[in-house]
């Protein structure tokens, strides 16, 4: 185990902004992509019917 405590984990050895900025934006992008795809599908289904 690398981390003694939760705050140590969150601090990422002083690189918190860089590490969490990378993982956070990536997660946000993937969630946004799925939401946009669901909206596109709803619209496509609506126009077929």
């Amino acid at each position, binding site marked *: 185990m*690398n*981390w003694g405590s939760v705050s140590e984990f969150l601090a*990422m050895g002083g*690189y918190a902004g*860089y590490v969490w900025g990378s993982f956070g*934006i*990536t997660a946000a992008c993937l969630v946004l992509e799925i939401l946009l*795809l669901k909206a596109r599908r709803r619209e496509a289904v609506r126009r077929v*019917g």
Partner: protein
Amino acid sequence: MTSRINWFKYSSPASFYPLAGKLIPAFFAVASLLAVCGLYIGFFVAPTDAQQGEAYRIIFIHVPAAWMSMFLYVVMAFWAGMGLAFNTRLSSMMASAIAPTGALMTFIALWTGALWGKPMWGAWWVWDARLTSELILLFLYLGFMSLQAAIDDPRRADKAGAVIALVGAVNVPIIYFSVQWWNTLHQGASVSLTRNPSMAATMLAGMLIMALAIWIYSIAVVLMRVRSVILERERNSDWVQELTEQQS
């Protein structure tokens, strides 16, 4: 002996559409499972890097996204080329469905690269061969998408997009070999088939599992998107109309 399996069955949108619909939840489930394993290894098993401290953990998203950005481009160019050569509808729809996810992976590679470059090199961005060719890849994806969006007739849009996709494919080996061909700040390849990995086994395992997760995620979202593209383009066809009658 002649095969009785019709290998071309799933090359028609009408039979591919329901197949893709069935596969999507399975791909999402496997991708999530792999992402959980990969992140666990990346944050809790892989040790702190001797030179880069904890900042190196960006590798677990940066390298898989960068690999995926190049791989998706090759797949997109392949399907676009197939559509151009054989005039098959589904091939061109696949190419259109891959482009936005490819652009997203390229953006993630550039974004995480900037956040890694700042603490390690002291700069968010440098005009270096690897970074510049990856930025060109983003412009190729965006160019393909905006060209297709600008042409009303989908068949003509497919042909024009295929030309960009195929010409732009030259950029992929340039990205890959840029760290060998030019002097660059960017470090060399993380994984090579011809020599031992330059990193700890747990770091490598975490990175490869994350690469697999992002790969299967990409398949899932591309299948989702291609189903919408099929509905948008074939909404007047008999099989789509029958589909909605069954559902209602």
